[in-house]
């Protein structure tokens, strides 16, 4: 078979596969605009009577709108905190030599291996003792730092030449100024990559917010989405509307930051 033909067939297969991959998204949207979906029969590809009714039900009968705001706020705070703390630590690891450096680095490494489930019970009781259950601080505090972020930023910092630091410090800049005005501005791609990753992780987080946040008004998007199932058990149009609202922000972020997201994912696999 001529090479051209096999290439074409391959591309066609991939395109068909992509359509299949995308279909669940499409179907979710179609269902969300099909009034009364699921109660009588399955929706058709082009709905007879499309309406935004499910969305208005969603936002009027639940706290979904509030949940969006909650998710945005939490994700923003956590992202900023993680970028800042990780960069500060990365600065220490890449610019300094100090006793205990290797042990400290190994400890950061070790924390990455501890799974969330092991920490579930003790962290919960810790937050309870601090009076932070059902409180945003209970969600934010454990997420202030990210060992993964430290590694990523340290890696990136290694390619910022130390000579730049030294030049700045010869001119009288202190460590903090050198960090803020010399090193960090050169790390914009790494900050973007890790920032997007941290934002996505926080946005999609489920188990820990599930355990900590009890009030409906505090719930984040995944929690609110999960509750929809109890409230609208057979009203699939409303549930699909909720899914669309949950997915859309990440979709938008993905379209804008695709380069950074994929870079971040690919970077974790390359030594």
């Amino acid at each position, binding site marked *: 078979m001529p090479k051209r033909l096999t*290439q074409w067939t*391959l*591309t066609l297969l991939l*395109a068909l*596969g*992509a359509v299949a*991959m*995308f279909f*669940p998204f499409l*179907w979710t949207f179609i269902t969300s605009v099909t009034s009364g979906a*699921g109660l009588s*029969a*399955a*929706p058709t590809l082009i709905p007879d009577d499309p309406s935004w009714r499910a969305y208005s039900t969603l936002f009027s009968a639940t706290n979904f709108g509030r949940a969006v705001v909650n998710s945005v706020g939490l994700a923003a705070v956590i992202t900023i905190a993680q970028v*800042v703390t*990780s960069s*500060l*630590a990365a600065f*220490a*690891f890449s610019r*300094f030599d*100090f006793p205990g450096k290797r042990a*400290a680095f190994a*400890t950061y490494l070790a*924390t990455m*291996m501890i799974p969330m*489930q*092991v920490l*579930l*019970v*003790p962290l*919960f*009781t*810790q937050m*309870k003792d601090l009076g932070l259950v059902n409180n945003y601080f209970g969600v934010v*505090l*454990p997420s*202030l*730092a990210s060992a993964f972020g430290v590694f990523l930023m340290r890696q990136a910092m290694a390619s910022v030449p130390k000579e730049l630091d030294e030049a700045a410090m010869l001119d009288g800049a202190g460590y903090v100024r050198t960090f803020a005005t010399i090193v960090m501005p050169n790390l914009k791609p790494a900050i973007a990559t890790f920032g997007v990753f941290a934002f996505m992780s926080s946005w*999609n987080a489920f*188990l820990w917010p599930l*355990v900590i946040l009890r009030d409906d008004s505090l719930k984040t998007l*995944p929690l609110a*989405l*999960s509750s929809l*199932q109890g409230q609208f058990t057979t009203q*699939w149009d409303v*549930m*699909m509307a909720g*899914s669309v609202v*949950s*997915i859309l922000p*990440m979709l938008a*972020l*993905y379209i804008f930051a695709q380069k950074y*997201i*994929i870079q971040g*994912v*690919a970077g974790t*696999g390359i030594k």
Partner: protein
Amino acid sequence: MTNIATSRASQAVRRRRLRTTVIAYLFLAPSAIPLVAFVIAPMVRAAWISLHEWNLITPMRWVGFDNYAFLITDADTRLAFAHTLGYVAGVLPLTFAGGLALALGLNRTFKGRALLRGVYFLPVVTSWIAVAIVWRWLLNPSVGVINQALGAVGIDGPGWWADPQWSLVSIILASAWKDLGYVMVLLLAGLQTIPLDVQEAATLDGATSWRRLRHITLPLLSPQLFFVVVISLINGFQVFDQVYAMTGGGPAGSSEVVVQRIYDLTFRYGEAGTASALSMILFAVILIITLVQIKGERKWVHYA
């Protein structure tokens, strides 16, 4: 005789070293303090709690290793591990083979390649909850589009998430759909580091595509393949979100996985001690599996 100049100099050096050490630790503090307080300390505490019986309200009661003894012989726990293993055995081959095929297919430059790659990766950025709910709808036994499509060709679709025999399969399908793009991107990145001239040299030597794949591409890709397997196993054993949202471990406990059991033990049955013990066991299992793989890395992985 000590030279006063050198002893003064070495004093200054020592003071400067102390100063930089302090400054370094100050830079570490904002991340180190939360990590110690909210990861390391709780880890130690979890080990401590696992040796007690506790309902989170009344004081703990020491039981030594009783929780562990119970869990090892408990049928429900064994079942949870079996389900978790079943989940991993289902998702790993699907995402591995699928991701590899996609990565190989997308490894040449052609028009629309970025778009295709983008579409395949899209499910990765969604939350597990959204994926679970969407697939609950797709796999709805009566009005879901998949059973409707099967019905159109004369096949009586199964009960999917409502059927104890199919509940795990439903979760596997949804999870594979979400993770496929992640594996694809990882492997694609690895493929793109394989120099073209190596592949071309093989073609010139008369090697067919298949042989090229087996003897050149795959070995050169083995670091990434290895990474995918390690990460997939670690994540697979910790599966929770989509199980909770899609089936809640049901129907009739047919899809209960280990982390779901930990959650239920803690918040439904008030058995925080047992839950902690189970989480320790899970952690140990994951650790052992990972270490075994790392040991085998030397044998399986070729570094260029």
